[in-house]
């Protein structure tokens, strides 16, 4: 019974992670503007990684591998949003036609 609960838990979480990866790929290829694409890519880089790695942690049981996978989540959650933030800042600073895509608040 316990094995079955674990199997279905892993299956559901893994499927959710794969769905978020699919959404990421769809968004990256279907959106036209860079900020929209970054937004779509961020879904998979945070949500997808979290779900898939948590499913793997449950599947593998508690061992040294669990800690390594936890380290993977921490590393990805630190680096991926930072690079997204950096990319969007470069776009904001360098694109002269930003008003065509983005509605900016007036600076105080």
């Amino acid at each position, binding site marked *: 019974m316990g094995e079955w609960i674990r199997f279905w838990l892993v299956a559901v979480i893994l499927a959710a992670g794969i769905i978020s990866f699919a959404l990421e790929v769809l968004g990256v290829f279907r959106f036209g503007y860079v900020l929209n694409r970054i937004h779509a890519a961020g879904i998979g880089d945070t949500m997808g990684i979290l779900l898939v790695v948590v499913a793997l942690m449950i599947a593998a049981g508690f061992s040294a591998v669990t800690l390594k996978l936890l380290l993977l989540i921490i590393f990805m959650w630190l680096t991926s949003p930072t690079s997204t933030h*950096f990319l969007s800042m470069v776009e904001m600073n360098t694109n002269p036609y930003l008003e065509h895509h983005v509605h900016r608040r007036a600076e105080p």
Partner: protein
Amino acid sequence: MRSLFRRWFYGESDPIDDLLDVARQEDLDRQTRKNISKKNIREYEARPEARLSVERMRKRFRWIYLLTAIVCCVFLSYVLLYAVSSLPHLGELNPRTEEVVNRYVEKGLEETGAVNIVSGMILDYRAFDTLGESHVLFTALICVMILLRIDSKNQRKGYEDYYTIRSDTYFDLSHDMILRTICRALLPCILLYGIYILLNGQNSPGGGFSGGAVIGAGMILFSASYGMKTVDRFLTLKLCNIITFVSLAFYSFAKGYVFFMGANGLDAHIPKGTPGAILSGGLILPLDIAVGCVVSITMFGFYSLFRRGSIGTDVDYSRIDNKSRRLRKTGGRKQ
């Protein structure tokens, strides 16, 4: 017009065909005129029958071109297929080709002292090849420096806007709080991991190239998050040159000593150490460090040269800085 239509309707003539013919003839004339010299053009225009002979010659030459191409293709295919046919089959035990591989696998640990056979191969058996690769990296850095370096001699007047855009102060996002905080947490891990890969090359997968690449990437991240000026405090062009030169010279002298002392390092008297320890593998660890230094300096040098045209502060950025500060006040971009 009407008669033309009637003639075309009754099949007497085709106006489009005539037009095409004329165009083709003009094209042909231009081509033949390009092929023959000026002196021959006069003869060619004087004698109408010369046109025929030139066209015949062009046809003959086309035939020769075709034949030469076919002969070359068939010959090359034959040579390549012959070479392929003498290769051993996949998975077949062939003493002619397997000898070297078996030697590496069987005697590698004993002769080089390295648990990682790949490391023993590229830094002991084939160290000369790795020396060439390090020099290739060094040469690539020199070429990029020749092309992209800005110093006081080639800093052109009147192009300040161009250099303002290129200078690191314009796109510098190192004042960003998020990036700085994340990098403060991550950079020690990245650099430490790179040093671990570098020093543990003889025991586990890794070595000079991969460890040097990780360290170089960490330094690029450092310069992106803390600003080029922070890196300039400890890494100048002179230091880069000294590190690269000392690494390559040490590599050359150490490996030259081993090569000239006798076959397979028999008389070199370099202690192998116990396999698996950090100080083992004879010359592999020092050579790994040398290669890692060259690789990391090359990676960071590429980044620095492509970003602002120099390694270290040998350019007077004060003027450019003032201008870019003015630009940043207007929203960070030109209006």
